[in-house]
């Protein structure tokens, strides 16, 4: 056999065997590194796949590993497990059920991280930890302050009302604003500043369309997808309802729950044909009419891409997109940020709208929960404490251009426009008392936003379903509430009993007593500050 033939015959198998050998060596080396004896390992999973996020977390991880080694002489390894949004739910669900979930998990996307029934089963309650000071805050202004109180939201978003416990530790805060292409705005409209009034916003949109027609280019005033249309809903629907909310708010918690809504409806205080609703939807239609053609079918990325390509002047999204958008703009164009103006200058709308909704109740985002089955709960807590000192939280968020969630942590200057708006009205109007009304509302609203249904037609549809199903929904809701309060009372009674009976040590009794009091206090605070949020809507506004 000639050499050439031999090479031809054995080359293929040789390459395959060599590849297999190289891969096996690589796998063995990696296994040896991660499974080294005497090294404690903690894994932390999330769906934040942007390189900035992983890099920022890596910095904290490396520092913590070094610090831990210096303090204890032992080695610890913290491994990030970034999973894409598409696979996150399956990964977390199966991991938790199979008992192999990571030690620290980013809450969200999966039912098992969000619903009380799962939370109590799978996650470590943090009540006892968050009322103690964070030791990493020693010799800082937060020294001696309970960990909970070092967060700007006081961990209100972490509190689970049904469980009367805290479960999450957040890392960041998010608000929603409008990004605009300053150069394009100037070129299209001659303006150098963003709109300050609602009228100006509509004027700019009109001028952009005229400019596009004049130049024969494809240019939209605002780029959006379904998801990115929500900021407009929050900005231009809720404020119209504030006067109605104040009239109907029986329990004075600032919001209308389905009970109050139905009672008001039964007394004839409102209907979907009330001017508050009709004008809100009319206003909303005016704004969504400025979005690009076919926005309902667009994906989130399409809208971002459109804005980045300079095919739209404005784009409404959250502070979580800031770094990505600033990076994409680069030197090609300047980006500005503004808050959506309220229609206070409008002859009709100003009768209802007295100001924007407040963002004072914005809750912490990127919430981490600790797996109840972790072998290292104290280490997990310690790592989260390390990450949430003011200095570390500021550093982490600055590197990904997000808003810190710890008091005293400085925000990146380019995020100034995203600072939560404290002044404004609080409240929400939840009329969704039956499944049918929830379904019709969720299904038909897109037709309203796209202009296929007029506000009156939309109101007619809602009225028909509400009229038919609200009474039954009211009774169902009452039954649910009864069960909820029964469970609540049982749970509180159990805590109280434990505090009285547990006489093992004075400390134990005292601790349980404190836990009971804390639980009552948290419950009251929760009710005062958080009740009555639109289910599923606020989440869209405040978390990425």
């Amino acid at each position, binding site marked *: 056999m000639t050499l050439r033939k031999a090479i031809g015959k054995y080359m293929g198998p040789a390459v395959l065997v060599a590849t*297999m050998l190289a891969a096996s060596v*690589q*796998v063995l080396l990696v296994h040896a590194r*991660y499974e080294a004896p005497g090294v404690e390992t903690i*894994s932390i999973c999330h769906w934040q796949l942007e390189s900035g996020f992983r890099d920022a977390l890596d910095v904290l991880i490396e520092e913590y590993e070094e610090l831990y080694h210096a303090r204890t002489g032992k080695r610890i390894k913290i491994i990030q497990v970034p999973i894409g949004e598409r696979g996150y739910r399956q990964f977390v669900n199966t991991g938790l059920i199979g008992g192999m979930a990571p030690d620290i998990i980013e809450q969200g996307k999966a039912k098992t991280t969000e619903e009380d029934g799962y939370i109590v089963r799978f996650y470590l309650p943090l009540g006892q930890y968050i009322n103690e000071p964070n030791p990493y805050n020693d010799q800082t202004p937060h020294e001696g302050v309970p960990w909970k109180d070092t967060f700007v939201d006081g961990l209100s978003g972490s509190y689970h009302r049904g469980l009367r416990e805290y479960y999450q530790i957040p890392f960041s805060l998010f608000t929603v604003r409008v990004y605009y292409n300053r150069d394009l705005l100037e070129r299209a409209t001659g303006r150098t500043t963003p709109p300050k009034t609602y009228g100006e916003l509509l004027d700019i949109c009109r001028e952009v369309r005229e400019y596009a027609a004049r130049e024969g280019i494809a240019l939209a005033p605002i780029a959006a997808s379904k998801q990115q249309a929500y900021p407009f809903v929050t900005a231009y629907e809720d404020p119209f309802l504030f006067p109605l909310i104040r009239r109907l708010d029986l329990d004075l918690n600032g919001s209308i729950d389905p009970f109050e809504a139905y009672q008001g409806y039964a007394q004839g205080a409102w209907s979907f044909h009330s001017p508050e609703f009709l004008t809100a939807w009319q206003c909303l239609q005016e704004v969504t009419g400025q979005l690009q053609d076919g926005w309902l079918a667009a994906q989130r990325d399409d809208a971002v891409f459109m804005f980045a390509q300079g095919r739209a002047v404005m784009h409404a999204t959250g502070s979580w997109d800031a770094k990505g958008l600033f*990076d994409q703009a680069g030197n090609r164009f300047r980006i500005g940020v503004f808050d959506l103006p309220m229609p206070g200058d409008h002859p009709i709308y100003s009768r209802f709208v007295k100001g924007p909704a407040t963002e004072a109740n914005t809750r912490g985002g990127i919430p981490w929960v600790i797996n109840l089955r972790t072998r290292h709960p104290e280490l997990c807590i310690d790592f989260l404490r390390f990450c949430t000192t003011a200095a570390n939280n500021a550093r982490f968020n600055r590197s990904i251009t997000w808003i810190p969630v710890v008091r005293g942590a400085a925000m990146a200057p380019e995020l100034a426009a995203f600072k939560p708006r404290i002044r404004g009205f609080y409240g929400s109007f939840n009329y969704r008392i039956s499944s049918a009304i929830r379904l019709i509302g969720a299904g038909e609203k897109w037709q309203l936003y796209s202009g296929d249904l007029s506000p009156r037609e939309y109101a007619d549809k809602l009225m028909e379903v509400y009229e038919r199903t609200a009474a039954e929904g009211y009774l169902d809701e009452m039954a649910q509430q009864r069960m909820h309060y029964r469970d609540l009372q049982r749970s509180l009674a159990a805590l109280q009993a434990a505090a009285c009976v547990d006489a093992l040590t004075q400390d134990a009794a005292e601790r349980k007593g404190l836990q009971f009091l804390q639980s009552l206090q948290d419950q009251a605070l929760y009710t005062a500050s958080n009740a009555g949020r639109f289910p599923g809507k606020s989440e869209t506004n405040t978390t990425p």
Partner: protein
Amino acid sequence: MSSKQAKRAEIGKHTLVVLVLLFAFIPLLITFVISFKSNQQFAVAPLTPTFPLHFENWAIGWETISGYIANSIVISVLAVVLTLVPALLSAFVFARFRFPGKTVLWYALLGLLFMPGIMNLVPLFTLLRDLNMLNSMLALSTLYAVGGQVFCVFVLRNFIEDMPQDLFEAAQVDGASPLQQIWSLVIPMSGSILGTLAILRFLASWNSFVMPLVMLSSQYKQVIPVGLMRLDGEYIKLWGPMMASFSIAAIPLVIIFLFTMRLFVKGLTAGAVKG
């Protein structure tokens, strides 16, 4: 048919082939072009080459997925070996032996062909959990091997049955045991079909996404399809590194095809022209 008409027919055929090839290769070409772009360049000109070329995207891509490639190779090769060895033995038994219940067993086996693999996800997960074998690369290879048995046995049995009976009888006369018959007769004569099955099983294991996502929890044990997801950012996608990674991930498959294409084609066409 005149030569002019024949020429026209040839042009028509070639045009059709070129069109089909264009559809196949343009996505690959676009992937390659984008892999050298920054996000800014991508926003300005998504499909055409732009300068400067960002070679660092390939470095990022390699850094991100090189570990996954090694894992995928080990798991897929193991899966192929674990699939073919028992499949060949089973196929030999079904092809050469008579035993009670053979037909029932065979149809039961064939019945499994109609069962969608994803249906087994939950029972398999529970089983592995009970066996304390979750998060194990070997267990994943075993799952792939189990999943590939039915098809491989089905194909190999038919192939072995088609081999001349005289050969086996001659081997028996010479005192060859069944294992020796497999080693000396079946394997040398079924190289092409074994190669084809190996490639098909390798591809199936290589591309599997849900199974490793669910069964493996440690990131350093993960495989290439799950690893590629890491680059698919939720908010802003990094197109350059993502496409570079996709290109890198395709390279091992391209190499395998380069060296085994002859076997693959031979295996696929085996039995096509029986006389």
